[in-house]
């Protein structure tokens, strides 16, 4: 770490410091603002959407973009833009809640494994090894097939399949922190295990967790869209980007706009999250600083 960084550390709070460093990367800033824009769209979907997402109008089916329907209409004459806007709600919900589930379960398991070590560590990590030996998309498919379709089941399937990633990261940082002197000091003054984990270890291992979570939201959204695409996620008529793509697929020869826009929405969202995650990794890790 060089001197100017240390100095600026004192002046700003931790959050501002990260934002300050993030500002140096235009791609990360694009990602940051795109996600904020998307969250805004998702929250105010009811106000922003020009048409109700489920309203069918067969006399307007397969229309190309026009003033009335900015991105055209689908096979039932539903407004694609409105469906994309509501779809943002689904995708962000799935992404964030799935990662929340994975982070909570994986974090607890990883922290317990790393902190207690010994047989607890062994038992937990062997189970994680088993889960890791099934590719993540496939595990999500298996769980979703067992649970059946639906928004909630989709979140659980995608969330559980990502648990080992977080368990590993949290365990790794807990292992390296456990031997630090300030943890020993906390133990010496009589702090309980729970207090040491929640007050000292977790805050100090936030950086890799934040990065992994940001990238994790991206892969959760991608996985969820994939599951919906093969008919395991959200059922029609509710607009989900992957399901919209799947629905428009058979008309790709004559009406490619049915598949172009939902795909573009997925890609831009994932791209933004990946840029943001990469930017955060650089911003949070002083060693990687150029």
């Amino acid at each position, binding site marked *: 770490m060089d001197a100017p960084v240390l100095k600026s550390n004192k002046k700003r709070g931790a959050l501002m410091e990260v934002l300050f460093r993030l500002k140096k990367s235009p791609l990360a800033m694009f990602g940051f603002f795109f996600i904020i824009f998307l969250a805004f769209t998702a929250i105010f979907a009811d106000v922003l959407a020009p048409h109700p997402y489920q309203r069918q109008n067969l006399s307007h089916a397969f229309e190309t973009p026009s003033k009335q329907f900015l991105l055209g209409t689908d096979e039932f004459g539903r407004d694609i833009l409105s469906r994309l806007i509501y779809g943002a709600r689904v995708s962000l919900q799935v992404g964030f809640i799935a990662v929340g589930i994975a982070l909570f379960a994986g974090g607890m398991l990883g922290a317990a494994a790393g902190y207690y070590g010994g047989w607890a560590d062994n038992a937990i990590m062997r189970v994680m090894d088993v889960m890791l030996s099934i590719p993540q998309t496939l595990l999500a498919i298996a769980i979703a*097939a*067992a649970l059946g379709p639906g928004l909630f089941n989709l979140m659980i399937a995608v969330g559980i399949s990502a648990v080992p990633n977080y368990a590993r990261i949290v365990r790794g940082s807990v292992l390296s922190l456990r031997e630090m002197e300030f943890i020993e000091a906390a133990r010496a003054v009589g702090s309980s295990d729970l207090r040491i984990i929640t007050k000292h270890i977790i805050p100090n291992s936030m950086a890799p967790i934040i990065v992994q979570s940001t990238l994790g939201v991206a892969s959760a959204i991608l996985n969820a869209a994939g599951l919906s695409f*093969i008919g395991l996620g959200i059922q029609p008529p509710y607009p989900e980007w992957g399901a919209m793509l799947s629905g428009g697929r058979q008309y*790709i020869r004559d009406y490619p706009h049915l598949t172009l826009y939902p795909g573009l929405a997925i890609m831009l969202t994932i791209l933004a999250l990946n*840029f943001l995650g990469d930017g955060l990794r650089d911003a949070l890790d002083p060693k990687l600083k150029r």
Partner: protein
Amino acid sequence: MIRYIVRRILFLIPVLAGVAFCVFTLLYLTPGDPAKMVLGEMATERAIQEFREREGLDKPFLMQFANYVYKAVTRGDIGRSYVTKRPVMDEILAAFPATLKLAAFAIVIAIIIGLPCGILSAIKQYSIFDTAAMIFAMIGLSMPVFWLGLLLILLFSVHLRWLPPSGFDTFQAMILPSLALSAQSISMITRMTRSSMLEVIRADYIRTARSKGQKESVVIWRHALHNALIPVVTLCGLQFGQLLSGAILTESIFAIPGVGRLMVDSIKARDYPVVQGGVLFVAVAFSLVNLLVDLLYAYIDPRIKAQYK
């Protein structure tokens, strides 16, 4: 070295048992009565009862699991399809060559494109090529494989009419699906090669090689690349497993009769034994590929060999 190999193979057994347990539990939890699914809704109460006894479905959960493992290990029997009534293993084995071919094509493309791009990016760090390669790699990572597949069909089959939109019999037909499937792996390999090369290039022994007057090309190819490739080899193995599962979406877009297509069709038909059988099969294949990569890793990385001397 032998000890390492034996250890690694023995370690595979509990992992595979765990995978089988996960898959079996998920199948057990799946809604729907297997007896009714096989015999049809019109089956008599007695026929259902007999079927349950014959198949051991009336036994407790753990007994059923033991039976499942026993049958899988001794006879390769992992259940029967609800729809075709054929053994799941037969269905999967019939479909697997297509998936393997697709994944193999994709990994070859990914290595051919990803490796040179990564090396060049690292050597010419911060150049226009580096920036462009990194942005393209990020786009490749963010592209849903099913959307990329559709875009490729739209461009090369519908508009340009260069390549067929489906099938896998001819070389031409394989190009689009393998390209779509490999996009993510190309990006991963490019990024990994680049960062691994960048790390190695700054190492002391590279400085030593340069200071003794070694030619730059020898420094890069012999000293740097040899060491930088070690993590990339692991990644390629992991990617191959990802490709096997990524093939699920690709196959359904390009109408390739592989394991993925079989699974998707089975999901739509609620033919769960085939779905979970496919998961088990791919997970086992994935574990075996990783085993091979680990053994290869030990072969190319003298540090691991030294540990087990």
